[in-house]
């Protein structure tokens, strides 16, 4: 269980260190054993929120607790896997060397079989002896995924897991997430494309301009969307967006973005 309580984050930018808000007063509970989709337009603050959860950056105000531990405490990450937004690895080291290093940093070190298993399920086993800086974007993404699922963590945090993947890769990634979902893992992932990941989610949270504007079960949101599309009676978006849910969220983001 991950609890975010009144979390605000501002960055100091520019010469004078002016405050720039990235996340404003965000309170959110990520329930155990559920898949939560975290949606929002570019620059909404999704990655910032995720980095605060995994302890890379500290909230300016408020607190985050994972299984009772503060997010800055290393014990909060005992059973956590994280896939960063656009992962990258140092030059000159092979995929297998990199993943063994990260497995060594786990509390219970993963066995060689477990490493192979993770590499296989992420579909990068064939390239384990190639230096990682020679990987394509999709391959890098897969290696990072293999690292994040290593050691069978209970909580998985994925920052835009599907971005930069071809249609086949997306399908495979989604299948991996489905499998993890079947095993009752807590999954929190961000995306700005609703269409390709809606079916994964139990819950949907929407962030716009650093503010949480929706946080509901999928069924509930769908009901709202149906009602909304009855009212709307405007087909200007068909083509780009087809389902009522997409149109509803699109309008929602647009409206909140303006305020």
């Amino acid at each position, binding site marked *: 269980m991950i609890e975010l309580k009144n979390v605000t984050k501002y*960055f100091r930018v520019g010469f004078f260190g002016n405050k720039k808000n990235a996340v404003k007063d965000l309170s959110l509970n990520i329930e155990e054993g559920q898949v939560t989709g975290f949606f929002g337009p570019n620059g909404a603050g999704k990655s*910032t929120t995720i*980095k605060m959860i*995994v*302890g*890379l*950056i*500290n909230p300016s105000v408020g607190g985050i607790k994972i299984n009772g531990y503060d997010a800055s405490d*290393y*014990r909060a*990450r*005992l059973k*956590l896997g*994280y896939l*960063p937004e*656009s*992962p*990258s*690895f*140092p*030059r*000159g*080291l092979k995929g297998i*060397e990199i993943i063994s*290093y*990260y497995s*060594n*940093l*786990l*509390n219970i070190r993963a066995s060689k079989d477990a490493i192979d298993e993770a590499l296989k399920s992420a579909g990068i086993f064939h390239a384990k002896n190639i230096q990682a800086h020679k990987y394509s974007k999709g391959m890098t993404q897969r290696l*990072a995924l293999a*690292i*994040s699922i290593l050691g069978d963590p209970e909580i998985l945090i994925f920052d835009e897991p599907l971005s930069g993947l071809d249609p086949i890769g997306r399908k495979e990634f989604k299948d991996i997430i489905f499998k993890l979902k079947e095993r009752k893992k807590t999954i929190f992932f961000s995306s700005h494309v609703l269409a390709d990941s809606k079916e994964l989610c139990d819950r949907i949270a929407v962030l716009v301009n650093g503010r949480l504007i929706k946080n509901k079960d999928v069924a509930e949101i769908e009901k709202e969307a149906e009602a909304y599309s009855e009212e709307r009676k405007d087909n200007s978006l068909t083509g780009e967006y087809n389902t009522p849910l997409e149109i509803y969220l699109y309008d929602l983001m647009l409206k909140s973005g303006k305020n």
Partner: protein
Amino acid sequence: MEKILYGAMYSFKEIKSSKIFYSFLIFALILISGSYFVSQTSFINQGRIMVDFSIFAISIFNIFIGIFIGSSVVYDDIEKKSVFLALTRPIRRTQYLIGRFLGLAAAIIFSTIIMMLIFYFVLLIMHKFIVPAMPVVKTVRHAIKPPLAGSMPFTLYSLPQPLIIQGFFIIIESVFISAAALLFSLVTSKALASIFAILVFFIGNVSSRMNDLIKPVRKVINGKTVTVHQANHTLAAIVHFIYTVLPNFSLFNISSEAAYKISVSGGGISYRIIYGICYTALLFVISSLIFASKDIA
């Protein structure tokens, strides 16, 4: 503890396969071998020229390695985001930082040893400056069990004590400056961190001489001893401040002893080692305090 070691091993591997490390190492090796030819241009004191030149090359290249890799070992890891996956494991930030730093120190030790070995071989070929390994040597490398007189097919030679000590000092000095570069790289950019580290090294090398220059001297004028201030008070205060605060790198330069094969006393050695290690540790503690609360985005 284990995690620190794994981190150190990994970062050593990473540094070893980095271009900058390789190029410095190869360049230094070329210079050391080249010093043989440089020394051939002189008729007298070929050994001394060779030693001066090589020790200079070894120390300057290791210091470069310390500065440039020190300012990028964590900085690049943050910049390239590969640090994300490490820090989101169940590991304290300090553990990660110690691992990186130890890996860097290992790389410096590795390169110094390789350079010293090549240097040793060049001296062996020239048959200059080396001393026969004595039967009861404790500090000297390549020492073997006392050979039975006449039973050895060849004589074993070793580097003189001050040269070995100098090699050791180069390691300490380079690790020391790399700790400074690491600290700077956590608060500024990589380029600025390298520049600051170079400045600190430069000032740290001349500060003791500057301090000697502005020290009041006692002179005997008309039969009376008077203290003469050679510089005005503010300047003296500034120089003295710099001298006290900035590390004194000239301590680690014993090339004149080395060139004349003068042994360095044990007390002098341990004082300098303790000085270097304490200062390095202090810089590292500051780095890890900064790093612990740094936003890594």
